[in-house]
């Protein structure tokens, strides 16, 4: 799961022990990045 810290803009990998917190700056607001896969949308 890849997130991005909203303060220092660095990529953050979360594990189950560290809790929701940026390991570089300690900021608690993380943004989820868009998946790198191609998304197919049906236009209806």
């Amino acid at each position: 799961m890849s997130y991005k810290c909203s303060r220092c803009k660095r990529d953050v990998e979360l594990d189950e022990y560290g809790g929701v917190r940026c390991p570089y700056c300690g900021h608690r607001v993380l943004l989820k990045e868009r998946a790198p896969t191609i998304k197919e949308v049906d236009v209806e």
Partner: protein
Amino acid sequence: MVADFEVEFIERDDRNARFLVRGASPAFANGIRRAMIADVPTFSIDTVRFVENSSVMFDEMIGLRLGLVPLTTPLDDFEVGETVTLALDVEGPGTAYSGDIETSDDLVEPADDNIPIIELKEQQRIELEADAVLDTGREHAKHQGGVAVGYRHLQRVEVVGDAGEFDEGEPNILRGVIETEDGELVATDEFDHDLAERYPGKELAVHDVPGAFVFHVETDGSFSVEELVTRAAESIGARAAELETKVAV
């Protein structure tokens, strides 16, 4: 056998036309109208594959906008169900226009180049690939070639006398196309849709002319008005022919 149709154009443009058909029954006029809306196929984007979309709108919203962009449709070269691949790749700052859409087949391209798809800010980018499919308006309204297709009766205006001396000069609003007493066809927008303007101080009688219909046909740019009308007529003809062969068996 019914009498031949008499067709006369009042307004004629590539995308917009008004024409009078004499000798048609109301059922046939409506059949043509419905065929123009539901039976003449056009290309429209149906599936979109988003590689990147960092714009302010969701993938689905952009997909819906792309689906509504009219694409030129050469009906002689394609069958219903065939697809053409299109692509869009624009980086901000700037606006992605329908004209930025690239096509794999030059016959199928956006009919209008200046439709804004999405405005992109600094560092925003949109990259996508789309499949346009040829289908009919019956399947989805985005495949309709005709826009605001309709008809009215031709109306005959006769002067029956002079208006009373003390009558109020009230407007007499009429829309469509009128036939004057000398058989001249006049679109009502020429006199601001007000008969009192064309015939001041006269008493008038207005009747529908039986079997005469004034069609107003506008296309979204997929093809010309002529193409739309002839294809609609062909589709009715094809269905009648199908019925004929099936009944004969």
